Structures are given as structure tokens and as C-alpha cells.
């Protein structure tokens, strides 16, 4: 899939939500049957109450997705990671394991993490939030960079398993990375071979300028809270320019708009639902909501997509359990009829589903260019 052309197809991802495992299983199955590219498991690093007064809790994302990998066959499995409270070595290993176990369907969504959670990760005698929180976007950028180097610490053909000679690996193809950043330091190598996707895709949320700068450096896909097509066009132009400045090809980033689709039998019913939704979200957090009949929602999706600023949508957690099934059952087939969405049933890696190439190993490339190690 390229950024333009008649072949262009929508990318769709959906958020999992809630602490109820059975509900997450149903959501993942609905999303997979509908042909979604991925589900995203949210992280929660502290206790908080949702708008309805109920605790907002999510299962630990890697364990949840590992369990889901067993009951699904084609959908991508993206774990949210709070960079401020994690270590690249742990997360690179978990993503490597998930990528092997799901045969190339793992990805991660790197977010800074809420400052309010700092008290849950305290060291006695240390006061105040550390630099990982104060300079969150820069820290997230480093986090992603360290992940890629850790995955690349093993060349793809490092494991030889020569039974006759008793040699398991080519030691010259497994390296220490000696990463020493401002926020993270990790010596490496990782203790799992390079994942099937080489580097599982990394998503960033983009909001402010610093978020965009981070995504332009390290992200394979960016999720943005966009409210209009005009805003989307500006965001895409800005991201293109930033990527080129970073020496990346502008088409190597997928841009997804965060969306709450509200599908009902009639437009009136949908608008009533939308009204209640906006009240529940509160004035402080404006959301992109497409409300209407399946055809009306598909119309708006089509209009946004044809403008070519975005590559698809990320379906945000929806306040009613029937909204995702309704979208999957009614809107997705309509998008398919219009030739906007893939046929479904495709099995591929998450990376190739997103139209992204498998990255070369940075160390192997350096070695080839240098003619020696």
C-alpha cells in the first residue's frame, strides 16, 4: 500500500477496554472478523475513575495480548507502553515474545504515561517527577530508538544451530548496543533473537509540536485526535515536512485519526446517542464523532479518506458495548462495497498489513557498508 493511488485502502484499528477478559476476547474477535488491522490494548499505570464513577482499569496489555494471540489468527496486537515507567529492555523482550508467539502480529503504542502515576513508581528518598516525565516526548523518542537497536542486536541469521559442531549461534552476529541516552541506558544484546517482523511497528500519539517531532523521528504510525479534514491536511503536511527533515521518506508513516463511530438505525437516533456521548466525555475533551446510519458514517469516513491526509482510523474506547459490533457489522461491509477497505481474511504480519516494509538490521547494514565489522 502506498500513500496514494487507486489501490489505497483504509487502515482500521480498535481499542480494547475494561478489566473483563471475556469482553476483550469478544472485542478482538469482532475486530478480527471485520478485517481490522489491529487491536490496541491500553496500559493503566494508576487508579482512576471514569466519567461514570466506575474505576477505569485495563488488564496488563502484554499478558492480555499474549492470551488473545492464541484465539486469533490475523489481527495485529498492539500494546500501549508508558515510557516514563518502563525500561526498553523489558518491553523489547515482551514485544519480541509476542511477535514470535503471534507470528509477526505484535506492535506497540508508546505514550509518555500520566504524571499522576509517578507515586506508584517511587523510590524512597527520590523527590519529584524525573526527567522521563518532564521531557516526556524526548524520552519516548529515546525509548523507541532503544527498542529498535535491541531488536537489531541479533542479525536475522545469527542462530545457526549446527548440531554437528555443537554451535548454536554465530557470536559475531549478536552485539552489545551500548545505548546511553539521556533518559535510558541499555547495554544489550537482547536475550531473544530478532523478531519475525524485524522491528514490530511503533505507534505514537501525536498532539502538540513535541509529539509530532517525536513521531516524525521514530514512529511507524501516528494516532492523532483530529477534529476536521482541514486540521488533518495541516497535520499531514507538517508530518511530511518533519519526516523529510529527519531523513525519512514521507510515505513511511501511517497517520490515523482517532474516531468514535456511533451507528444507529436512523440519523435521529444516532444524533441523540451522540449528544449523550458528548455530555459523558465532557466539554474539556472534544472528540471526532461520526454519528448516523451505516451509510452516513461510511460517507464521512470516505470523505476523510479520499482527501488523502489520513490513512485510516483508530476506533477509540466506546462508552457502550454495542457500538463496536454495530460498526463492524454495518459500516465495515459498506466500506468494503465501496472498495475502501480490504476484503478481510488476509493473513500477514502487522507491518505488511500497514503497508510498511520489513526494516533492514541497522548493524548488519553498517557492517556491509563498512566491509567489515
Amino acid at each position, binding site marked *: 500500500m502506498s500513500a496514494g493511488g487507486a489501490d489505497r485502502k483504509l487502515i482500521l484499528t480498535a481499542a480494547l477496554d475494561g478489566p473483563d477478559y471475556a469482553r476483550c476476547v469478544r472485542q478482538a474477535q469482532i475486530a478480527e472478523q471485520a478485517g481490522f488491522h489491529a487491536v490496541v490494548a491500553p496500559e493503566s499505570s494508576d487508579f482512576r475513575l471514569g466519567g461514570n464513577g466506575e474505576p477505569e482499569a485495563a488488564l496488563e496489555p*502484554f*499478558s492480555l495480548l499474549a492470551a488473545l494471540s492464541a484465539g486469533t489468527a490475523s489481527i495485529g496486537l498492539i500494546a500501549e507502553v508508558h515510557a516514563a515507567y518502563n525500561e526498553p529492555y523489558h518491553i523489547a523482550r515482551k514485544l519480541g515474545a509476542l511477535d514470535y*508467539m503471534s507470528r509477526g502480529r505484535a506492535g506497540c503504542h508508546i505514550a509518555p504515561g500520566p504524571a499522576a502515576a509517578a507515586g*506508584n513508581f517511587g523510590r524512597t528518598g527520590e523527590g519529584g517527577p524525573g526527567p522521563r516525565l518532564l521531557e516526556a516526548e524526548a524520552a519516548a523518542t529515546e525509548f523507541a530508538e532503544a527498542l529498535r537497536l535491541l531488536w537489531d542486536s541479533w542479525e536475522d541469521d545469527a542462530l545457526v544451530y549446527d548440531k554437528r559442531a555443537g554451535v548454536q549461534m554465530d557470536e559475531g552476529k549478536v552485539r552489545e548496543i551500548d545505548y546511553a541516552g539521556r533518559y535510558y541506558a541499555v547495554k544489550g544484546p537482547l536475550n531473544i533473537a530478532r523478531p519475525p517482523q524485524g522491528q514490530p511497528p511503533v505507534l505514537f500519539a501525536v498532539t502538540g509540536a513535541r509529539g509530532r517531532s517525536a513521531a516524525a523521528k521514530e514512529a511507524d504510525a501516528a494516532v492523532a485526535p483530529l477534529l476536521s479534514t482541514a486540521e488533518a491536511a495541516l497535520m499531514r503536511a507538517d508530518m511530511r515536512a518533519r519526516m523529510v527533515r529527519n531523513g525519512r521518506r514521507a510515505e513511511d508513516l501511517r497517520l490515523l485519526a482517532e474516531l468514535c463511530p456511533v451507528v444507529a438505525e436512523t440519523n435521529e437516533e444516532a444524533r441523540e446517542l451522540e449528544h449523550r456521548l458528548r455530555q459523558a466525555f465532557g466539554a474539556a475533551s472534544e472528540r471526532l464523532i461520526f454519528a448516523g446510519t451505516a451509510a452516513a458514517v461510511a460517507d464521512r469516513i470516505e470523505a476523510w479518506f479520499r482527501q488523502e491526509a489520513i490513512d485510516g482510523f483508530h476506533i477509540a474506547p466506546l462508552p457502550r458495548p454495542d457500538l463496536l459490533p454495530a460498526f463492524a457489522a454495518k459500516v465495515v461491509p459498506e466500506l468494503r462495497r465501496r472498495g475502501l477497505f480490504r476484503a478481510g481474511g488476509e493473513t500477514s504480519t502487522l507491518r505488511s498489513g500497514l503497508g510498511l516494509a520489513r526494516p533492514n538490521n541497522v548493524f548488519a547494514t553498517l557492517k556491509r557498508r563498512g566491509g567489515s565489522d
Partner: protein
Amino acid sequence: MNLFAHGTGHHEAAWRLPEADPRQTLDIDYYRHLARVAERGLMDSLFVSDAYFGRINKLEATTLLAALSAATERIGLIATVGTTYCEPYHLARQAATLDHISGGRAGWNIVTGSADASSLNFGKAEHPEHSRRYRIAEEFVDAVKRLWDGGIDPALSGGAQPVDGPSGLRPDSGIVGEAGFEGEYYSVKGPFNLPRPPQGYPVLVQAGSSESGRAMGARVAEVVFTAQQTFDAAREFYADLKSRLPAYGRLPEQLVIMPGLCPIVADTEAEARELEAELNEHVNMQDALKRLSSRFEADLSEYPLDGPVPLHKAKLPGEINALRSRQQLLLDMIEEESLTIRQFVRRFANGRGHFAFTGTAVRLADEMEKWFLRGAADGFNIMPQSFPGGLEAFVDKVIPELQNRKLFREAYEGTTLREHLGLAMPVPRYRALR
């Protein structure tokens, strides 16, 4: 009875057997098969180790076991997570999640991490010294328990009640409790953000047999894995550990002791010996000598293979910052059995110092019966030399023999790991206070 799933097998040369496929060790289907065979054998649990350094190639433990929870129904799932480079809040969430998605089958093997090299993967200049590591670990466990105790209780939930106060929540409502943990090393505010695990706490497992390890085991562990070379040593360890329990207000049945057992089982003694010899043939002597030399102030490859192990060059257990109890065990074994270097390499290859047995199912059942009935073990941590063959042989030959002797269950009676092991649910502290 626990299965310790480990690569292609616990013999270090298992991967070189003709039937072995070492690439499978990253394949979930391979582990799924092992888990199902263990479940067919009605084993209590499946356990995996973990590490945070080196060039070993393996799947991270919690992720692997979460995937296996979806492929199994009854067997317990014990994940190793080291405390030194992890966060109590993360561990509490990981283990609680595994407990929720498996319907109460989770266990956590608490380790402090055995390698100095780990620190460099987490931006730390040095790995904490042995006894300090255990102090950190004990505090870590205390913080995690506080979090689990304060988990959202679905039975009492009608929505948590926001109130004034530092947490905004009422800890005594029985719904959520602040951890409010402030120790020497960790400060964890809470509250926990998941429902209380179905087992109250996932089963707490511990595997260090040094003095610090035993002290921690006696205080916090519900299952202890241990490496013991002989029946007498196992009995001494068993008695010592159980005798420490009253000091913590605990009863003997609140701690299950499982020595490691590396079985090579066949229908005849001769066949079993043949299997053992085949494995030993495949040991890469050079690599093994290099690895074992780290336990000595000498390069073992400079000594004659069939000469004695240079015991006077061995490092003392106190001089190494990891697996101290194992070092003592190995030195005792070399001395008592007057091992040559070649013999030592083979003994170590065969289960890294755990009790290894080669023979028929009946003879192995005799040995297990003796350990079980005469105060050396409550159960065993089964470490087959090669997978899946060694596990299948154990399940198909040894388990029925133990069942015939009424030493092992005929069917799963409970659904949770606690029920399998006969361990009671912990009483949450918040509720205990009310």
C-alpha cells in the same frame, strides 16, 4: 508436581539430539504441546525461568504463560519475574492479569536475579550485593501484597466511592485501598487498579537456597523449588526450612517444598543408560569448561579431563554474587564423589546440579516415594532432560506408577493452583482490619 519447561530440555546437549528442533523454543505451539502433556499428566503447574542478560534466546516468562493460559484449562502457570529491575506496581498488574485470564492458576516465582551483567541493561552501574538484593526483594513482595489487598473487589463493587482525602477514595469501603507503601527502597502510593486476583494472591514461589534465600522463603514463599543432590541433603533442607516457619506464625502445610528432579526414564535400565550416554556424547566439552571455569580461580581446560577437579582453586560461595547455594552444592558433590573434570562436566550438564535419575519408572517411583514419605519433599519440580520425549515418558510411565501407589491424584479436584497445592486463600489485610 511441577513441570519446569526449559528450552529443548534440561540436559545442556538436548538440542543436539537428532529429534530436537531448537528453533521451536520460540514457537508457542511447542510450549502448548508441553503444557497439554503436563495437563494430561495432572501436574499441578508449569513453570518457566527467566533472565535479564546474556545471549540466551528465550521467550519472556509472563507473556509466554499468558499465551499458554488460553491453551490449557487446569494446570497452574508459574512465571519467574526478578525483583531487582522490575516495579512492584507492574508485577502486581502482570501477575493479577495472569490470574484473571487463567481463572486463578497463576504463580509468581520471586527471584532476585543472578547476574551482575543484568544491571547494565537497565542503566544501573552495578548489581546489588547478595543480601541487599534479598532485602530489596522482601520489601518488593510486601509492596505487591499491599497492592493486591487493595484491589477492586467485584463482589462489593457498586462503583467506587469518591470521597475527600489524599486518595480521593475511601480505603475502608472494601472496594479499593491505597497501598500507601513506604519502605527503605520502594514508595508505592496505590491504589491498585485491577480487581483483586481470583486467588487473593497468585501463589508465591521462591527458589533460592542460600541463607538469605531460606530466610525469605520461610517468611513469604508458599512453594520452594530447590536443588538437592542427595536424599540426606534434601531432608536436611526440608527440616531446616519447615522449622523456620513458626517464627513467622506459619504452619508446615503453608509451604510446599519441591526439589528439582531430572529424570531419564525408559522401560529397562539399559535403555535409560543408553539415552543418558547419547546425551553425554553431545556435550560440547570446550563450551562447558569455559562456563564452569567461572566458578574457579582457574581455567579448567588447562587441566587433564580425566584428572581430579582442582577443588583448591574453586571460588568460595561467599565470593560469588549469585546462586551461592548452588556453588556449595557443587563443591560438596565434587568432593564426596571425587569427580574427574569430565565426570563433573557431565554431572553439571545433566540438570545443572539438580538431582538426576536414570532408570526405570518403578525405580524412580521408589525414589520419589522415599523422598515424599520420609520428610525430604512435598512434591517435585520435574526437569526432563529432553522435550517432549522426556516429559512424555515421565507422564506416561512414572505418573501411573505413582497413582497405583496412591501417591498422586487421579483427577484434578480443584480449578485454581491454590486448590491443586492445598494452599488457603490469603485474607486481605483491609478486610481483616474491619
